[in-house]
């Protein structure tokens, strides 16, 4: 009985912490419609700050608490609202999610920069060693404080939201901030307050839980996933149900810690994954969401052109040849994932970019591909590669079937839960049998992978494998482009805008959703198999959720609906960042901030970075003379490099110079050719200026549409806003 009580108290203490963090999550979501993935990371930063002030610098506890909780945590919340979230209006859910995830990644990287990882940072609990005697059992002061704080926060939030004017406005804000504005409230101020309170609650949770764990940025930030599960109990709206969810999860964790046999490998591996399993199940119980409609997104991803795709495929293969023939073995291993994990990035293009669905589990599917090729690709059998695609697609289908009715944040959380369940639990299980099927995993360590052999040719060197990856990347790029041009591709793009409209044509939305998810998982499996071949031996840690997030972020930053975004993601993450990191440890540290901070800036240009580069290179693409000259110059540099006239750094610099010079020359030639008499700068009114339409050019329906867009006529329509279930802002 005493053991039961002890673990009940442990569970309730965890529940209290999760409840505090989750209530902040619910508050910001319910008032701004943005799911804050970085809630745990804000708590983590507050905990680190508290440690710094209280334990490293020795400040008194109350002052350290006031600074870290009263000032820092709300300030982070406010800064996020002012600097980042306000720019996200009119963006897709994927974009909003990426910004939030990027923020988490950025805060983790920032914390690792300020507080070097790996160093021990002991943090004692409040009133360490003192206990309260409850008669039937005793609890520590820290546990008592945690539970009391959670109760006070619950009461405080209840009072705020129901008994204050600002609280009522906060509840109304998410429904329609235009209506809130018309009723005299200030939506921006309300959102700011919500983010500040959310930041404060994250800080409270972080400081309460940090002493019972090790002060480590990644794990502390990801602990939030337990709070997500609690928030899902409350459907991200109800604070009382969120507290109930927190109690269920906390107690489950407490009892599992006390009663799950620790000597059984299968059970021991389950304990850290129990919460995500609860989260996954809770998500399955979420009622069917409304069909997505009237997206009116700011993002625009044009279909790829055939000539552009051919050029991209050629560039990729040529780049593969150049890398394979100029890099030494160590560099080949370092930069090898550019194309193999680039394929994993490519898997997100149809899913996120075309269909508007979200998956945070792509690297997990890559892990399944790696396992398939490890166990079925002995002696380079191509069967391993085929099975990597088939098995990953099959698992993708199994995951998709129950969760595909979910969309947006719920789908993101379900896939994140699947990813964490895989890397915390399933990937760490010993081999097992289900009936006649024997399942082999990572064998509690790592598995070796044989290089591919096709028609007697073995891809047994890093150079050959990099070439192979480049060719496969080019082929899959063409496949993804062909998908976009196809009937199915148009349908996916249509569903992204309005599932409701597609359903009214007689489309059963389930199958396209499952189909694109399975296809995407299959592509990721292929990328994972090639990645595993390059590594020669793989362990589950290579495929965990945190490693997969930068890929997801960079694809969306590049422009999720563009094939080039996968090359952008692969090139930046596994090419540019490792390359510049060799310049010195300071740059390597700054590089670690890159994925997070680029994602955070996504709100400014939701269509991504690739169109910007593409526009810059437009004149060059259209100028065959300059293009050919650049090609010749680069070829000469390549030959000189092969002749070892200079090294790789000089080679990279010369290629860069050739590219920039060609772009500048092409632009000059383009602008001088385009400017006819009277069309130069200052020669007349800007034809793009709507005020001059009718004078500079005939008035057309396109101008009327632009005027409607400029005046935002459609979005001002308030008619039926409360009654029309299709017309909700999140619809």
């Amino acid at each position, binding site marked *: 009985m005493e053991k039961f009580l002890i673990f009940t108290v442990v569970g309730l203490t965890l529940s209290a912490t999760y409840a505090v963090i989750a209530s902040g999550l619910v508050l910001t979501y319910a008032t701004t419609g943005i799911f804050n993935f970085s809630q745990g990371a804000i708590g983590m930063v507050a905990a680190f700050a508290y440690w710094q002030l209280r334990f490293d610098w020795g400040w008194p506890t109350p002052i350290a608490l006031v600074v870290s909780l009263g000032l820092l945590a709300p300030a982070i919340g406010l800064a996020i609202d002012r600097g980042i979230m306000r720019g996200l209006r009119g963006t897709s859910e994927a974009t909003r999610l990426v910004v939030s995830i990027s923020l988490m990644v950025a805060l983790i990287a920032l914390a690792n920069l300020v507080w070097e990882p790996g160093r021990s940072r002991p943090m004692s609990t409040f009133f360490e060693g003192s206990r309260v005697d409850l008669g039937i059992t005793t609890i520590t002061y820290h546990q008592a404080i945690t539970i009391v704080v959670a109760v006070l926060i619950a009461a405080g939030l209840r009072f705020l939201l129901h008994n204050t004017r600002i609280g009522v406005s906060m509840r109304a804000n998410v429904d329609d901030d235009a209506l809130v504005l018309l009723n005299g409230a200030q939506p921006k101020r309300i959102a700011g307050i919500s983010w500040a309170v959310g930041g404060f609650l994250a800080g409270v949770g972080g400081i309460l839980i940090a002493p019972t764990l090790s002060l480590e940025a990644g794990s502390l930030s990801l602990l939030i996933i337990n709070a997500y599960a609690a928030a899902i109990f409350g459907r991200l709206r109800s604070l009382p149900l969120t507290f109930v969810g927190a109690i269920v999860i906390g107690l489950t964790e407490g009892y599992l810690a006390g009663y799950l046999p620790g000597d059984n490998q299968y059970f021991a591996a389950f304990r850290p994954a129990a919460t995500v399993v609860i989260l996954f199940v809770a998500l399955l119980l979420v009622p069917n969401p409304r*069909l997505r409609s009237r997206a009116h997104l700011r993002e625009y991803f044009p279909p790829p052109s055939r000539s552009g795709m051919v050029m991209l495929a050629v560039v990729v293969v040529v780049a593969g040849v150049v890398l394979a023939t100029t890099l030494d073995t160590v560099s080949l291993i370092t930069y090898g994932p550019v194309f193999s994990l680039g394929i994993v990035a490519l898997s997100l293009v149809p899913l996120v970019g075309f269909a508007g669905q979200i998956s945070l589990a792509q690297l997990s599917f890559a892990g399944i591909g790696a396992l398939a090729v490890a166990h079925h690709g002995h002696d380079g059998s191509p069967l391993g590669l085929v099975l990597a695609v088939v098995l990953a697609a099959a698992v993708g289908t199994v995951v998709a079937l129950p969760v595909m009715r979910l969309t947006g944040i719920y789908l993101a959380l379900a896939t994140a839960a699947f990813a964490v369940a895989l890397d915390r639990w399933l990937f760490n299980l010993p081999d097992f049998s289900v009936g006649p099927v024997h399942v082999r995993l990572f064998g509690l360590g790592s598995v070796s992978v044989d290089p591919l052999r096709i028609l007697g040719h073995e891809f047994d060197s890093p150079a050959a494998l990099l070439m192979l990856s480049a060719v496969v990347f080019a082929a899959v790029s063409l496949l993804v482009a062909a998908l976009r041009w196809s009937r199915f591709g148009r349908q996916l793009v249509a569903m992204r805008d309005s599932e409701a409209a597609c359903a*009214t044509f007689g489309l059963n939305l389930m199958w396209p959703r499952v189909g694109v998810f399975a296809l995407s998982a299959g592509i990721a499996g292929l990328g994972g198999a090639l990645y595993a071949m390059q590594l020669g031996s793989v362990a589950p840690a290579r495929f965990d959720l945190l490693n997969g997030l930068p890929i997801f972020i960079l694809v969306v930053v590049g422009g999720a609906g563009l094939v080039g975004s996968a090359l952008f993601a692969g090139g930046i993450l596994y090419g540019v960042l490792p390359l510049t990191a060799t310049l010195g440890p300071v740059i390597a540290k700054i590089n670690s901030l890159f994925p997070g901070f680029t994602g955070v800036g996504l709100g400014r240009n939701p269509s991504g970075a690739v169109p910007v580069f593409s526009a810059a290179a437009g004149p060059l693409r259209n100028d065959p003379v300059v293009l050919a000259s650049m090609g010749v110059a680069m070829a000469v540099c390549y030959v000189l490099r092969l002749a070892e006239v200079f090294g790789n750094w000089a080679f990279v610099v010369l290629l860069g110079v050739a590219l920039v010079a060609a772009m500048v020359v092409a632009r000059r030639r383009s602008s001088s050719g385009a400017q006819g008499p009277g069309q130069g700068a200052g020669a007349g009114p800007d034809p793009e200026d709507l005020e001059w339409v009718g004078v500079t050019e005939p008035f057309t329906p396109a101008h009327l549409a632009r005027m409607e867009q400029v005046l935002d006529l459609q979005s001002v329509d308030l008619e039926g806003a409360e009654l029309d279930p299709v017309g909700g802002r999140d619809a």
Partner: protein
Amino acid sequence: MLEARGISVRFGGHMALSDVSIDAPAGQVTGLIGPNGAGKTTLFNAITGLLTPSAGTVHIDGRDVTRLKLHRRARHGLARTFQQLELFTMLTVRENIRVAADIHHRWSPEPGDPGVLTEEIIDRVGLAAVAGERVTALPTGQGRLVELGRALACRPRILLLDEPASGQDETETERFGRLLVEVASSGTAVLLVEHDMSLVMEVCSNVHVLDLGQILAVGPPAEVQRNPVVLDAYLGTDTGGAP
């Protein structure tokens, strides 16, 4: 023929529709008018299956489709446009219509090439000049024609149009009226929600008046126009003016 019987829809404490019944016979344009907030779009949503009514039944050609999902009802010949445009903004006018034609072609036993059908519809609704344009480049009036084109690409037996003429100028509305009559004369039941009273009076055989979630009156346009209850609740005393 569409028959909706006793439809009631409740949003929390608000009764948006209360025991509403409406018929739309094949080969006719049936009007549904009412002030803003009367529940017209909610009724469309309940008929098409976009929301589940708390009571009532929907029959298409005598078959009860009340329990069917949205896409299943569509496969019984039900198509619609939306009050707030639901265009596929990443696609062109042609692609918007082609998506609908492709989807219809997949489940429908009717023969035909979706590509050919798309071009026919583009000509029929008068969008040939802008067929290659991205739909975001179109004004609202032409956007509504794209929605109509998509609905027609499903070869509907029942067509629900939610304020299709809003955003169109006078000439476009006249042309649109002729098109509606032509669509109905091919045997389609058209149910038209519209604020342009002259269009309603011109093309509709029968008009239902909805106010505060309840049917106020049903009858031929001229009769409804003279109905004192309607005049009081909706049109006002000045019958010459738009609502």
